[in-house]
């Protein structure tokens, strides 16, 4: 009984120590980013999405900086925080501490070596890539022998209120016959081909795609597809097809109207 009380007291005092608190915070943050975030994403969207390693590294870096700053922002806390480190580095008498020191001193270089080793390992995986998803559009494009000024261009069908529903309907037909395989039934970029494609098809329900683009931008992208991407969009491996030979101008404007109406977003307008 007394033993129990004693050990629980000990646990308390340990967690009152800033160093322990910092470690707990770090572990908590890590679990949050690696396990809780995908879980929440799963609840929100029906499909858990892992947090990419690049993001976990970035976030952990930020958390570590703030944790260190927090504990060093007060003299008393900071000297308490440093004490275990100093003890481990300088203790002469206590055998356990000396052993811990040696373990750390041996493990640290090993860890660094392992890090270097695994960093140099080649894997079969394609390297992560930095693609610019929304490159600048050209000012004008050639469409079936006609010059279209992308800059300032509006969807001509949008003004036609009488046939609005009809146009959206026609756009839906284009979408289901042409686009759904990649961009998905739910317009979320998870069509049946999506698994085999890198980069992934655009997710139109995301606030970062069509919601922030002008309709003329979409027109350009749909007409010219992946092959029409400009230089800055290296490595030009987008599988988005070039539709200018398969769809006419009207059909492209219609499918654009469908995309906005089905996702509930409004296109960005020109000022």
């Amino acid at each position, binding site marked *: 009984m007394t033993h129990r009380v004693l050990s629980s007291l000990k646990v308390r005092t340990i967690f009152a120590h800033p160093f322990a608190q910092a470690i707990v915070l770090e572990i908590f943050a890590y679990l949050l980013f690696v396990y809780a*975030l995908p879980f*929440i*994403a799963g609840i*929100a*969207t029906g*499909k858990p*999405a*892992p*947090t*990419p*390693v*690049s*993001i976990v590294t970035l976030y952990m870096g*930020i*958390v570590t*900086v*703030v944790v260190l*700053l*927090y504990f*060093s*922002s*007060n*003299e008393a806390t*900071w000297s308490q925080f440093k004490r275990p480190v100093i003890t481990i580095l300088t203790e002469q008498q206590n055998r356990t501490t000396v052993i811990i020191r040696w373990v750390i001193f041996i493990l640290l270089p090993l860890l660094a070596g392992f890090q270097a080793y695994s960093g140099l390992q080649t894997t079969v*995986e*394609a*390297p*992560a890539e*930095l693609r*610019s*998803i*929304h*490159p*600048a*559009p*050209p*000012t004008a494009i050639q469409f079936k022998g006609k010059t279209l000024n992308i800059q300032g261009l509006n969807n001509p069908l949008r003004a036609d209120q009488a046939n609005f529903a009809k146009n959206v309907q026609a756009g839906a037909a284009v979408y289901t016959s042409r686009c759904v395989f990649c961009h998905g039934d739910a317009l979320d*970029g*998870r069509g049946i081909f*999506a698994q085999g494609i*890198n*980069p*992934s*098809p655009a*997710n139109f329900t*995301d*606030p*970062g*795609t069509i*919601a*922030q683009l*002008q309709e003329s931008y979409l027109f350009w992208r749909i007409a010219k597809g992946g092959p029409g991407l400009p230089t*800055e969009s290296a490595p030009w491996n987008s599988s988005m097809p070039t539709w200018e030979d398969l769809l006419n101008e009207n059909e492209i404007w219609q499918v654009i109207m469908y995309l906005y109406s089905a*996702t*509930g*977003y*409004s296109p*960005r*307008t020109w*000022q």
Partner: protein
Amino acid sequence: MLSSDKQNWRPLVRAAFVIFFLLILFTDPALAQSPDPAYREFPLIGSRVALWLVAEVHLMFAAFMLGVPMFAVVVEMVGWRNKDARYDALAKEFVKLVVIAASTTAILGALLTFVLTVFYPKFFNYLANIFSPTFIIYPILFFGESFTLYLYYYGWDRMMEGAAKVGHIIIGIVLNIWGTILMFVANAWLTFAISPAGVDDQGNLVDLWAAITNPTWMPINVHRLIANVAFGGSIVAAYSAIKFLNSKNAEEKAHYDWMGYVGNFIAIIGLIPLPFAGYWLGREIYGFNQQMGITMMGGFLSWLWIIQALLIGILFLTANYYLWVGMGRISGGERYRRYIKYLAAILVVGWIVWATPHSIVASLEEARKIGQFHPLLGVLGVMSAKNTVVNLMILTTFISFLMYRRAGKEARGGGARRVKILQAIMVVSAASVVLFYGVYGYVDIFGLFGDPGSGTPAIIRIGFSVYQVAAVLAALFFVTLLDIFLFRRATTLGPMSWGQMPERSQYALVLLAVTFTWLMGLMGYARNAIRQDWHVFGILKDTSLDAYSPTLGFAAIVISVCVILFFGLIAFIFWLGELGEKKAKLTFPSSESKPAYEPAGSGGGK
């Protein structure tokens, strides 16, 4: 003292003459028509990097020279109004640094003209043809600026009393007017290259005034004015920090602690409105040319904003950190200690959101599972989220500052509680407005612009940041006003121990200055890289070997070299400047005289 002053004076005059003659020489029409090559190759590093280094380091010096007098005059006025000699001495010490840096700035300016004329003659001649009248005015302005600076500094001790003091302050204001016009003129040249106006299709000048007042001119003017203050403050703070770390006695420590505090305070004041000025500039760029706007925000530069977010996160955090540590030297500061963890939590969340890229670097395997955008994190990648957190971070910094301000004092009187509640309501309401518009940036919950639950139209959404900013600025203003009123007759809880700052707080100040400088270089790169293969966008094509925007990685290296050069140079000249100097009497506010440790402008500054 005198001997070192003379040393500062001579190179400046020499440099000014060099600039003047170079300008006359190269604006000469005969030279403009000569069949010279369009480019010459700079040995080893290439012309572009050479120009880049010189221009950037010159700009850093110029920013320092323009920024510091702006607040030095304010500090002088504070000293004059409150009859407090310490502020007067501090202001003079600020200006001393400007005087020391002046000649280097001028020499770098001359070097910049030189590199531009010799290695980019085509480009330079084009600009010279467009702007020739301003090229004549510029040297005159430059002389005006330098002579006013010397008059301001060397006349200081003779113009201490009565009307002479007023005259002296007026000289200080005139100095700032010169400086501001000077910068506006230079800005006309460089903004013209980004968003040319007042020229016909062939690039012939039609309207000089339109060329000067081109679309990005005013936004850059304002952005730079504010940034110069922030930058100047941070450099002064870093200078004090280094002096603090090298202090031999308690008196020196106290003085430089105080000086560093004032510098940091000024830097924060400048930092707060800076993001908003940046939005304005961004909007003008979008408005001028959408293609350029997209290159900047969504195209190959989009990754730059992630780096920017990390750096600005560092700025906010360091500024807060300095205040938190600073509460340790105020008796009474312990009372606020327990709130710091919540502020740190808000800052960490804000920083994380700000630094979340929209398109995430993911391995193929991860990308398969995630799709194009991460369902949760992708949401954090867009402007609405970023605007929201930056406003919240500004509010948090403000709260840190309020706590610092109150640390050593206790407001008295029955109304104090009510005023505090009112202040809390203001801060909370501002935060709520920010959050409301943040969420509304995604969904139109109440159907104000269309069907409830559908997306808010982009064109309306981008206007939201204005309301968010307005709410935050209003809260900042009124809460500060109430605070001044509240603590006017406050009891002091104990002495303020200037100089009792742990050393790491001083390293924080140095970090602040380095981050600021680096960020400035990075933003300059962004602004120029959007021109891509144009010298003057859409008008004068770059036909050199370097007719492409350098990659971010390469830019990072060049910018780092600029930062190292700048700090190396400025440390060296400050050291030189003090070689022949006698020890001046050092001051710092003691806690006995009542409003003493009220920093310059801590109340009225906002």
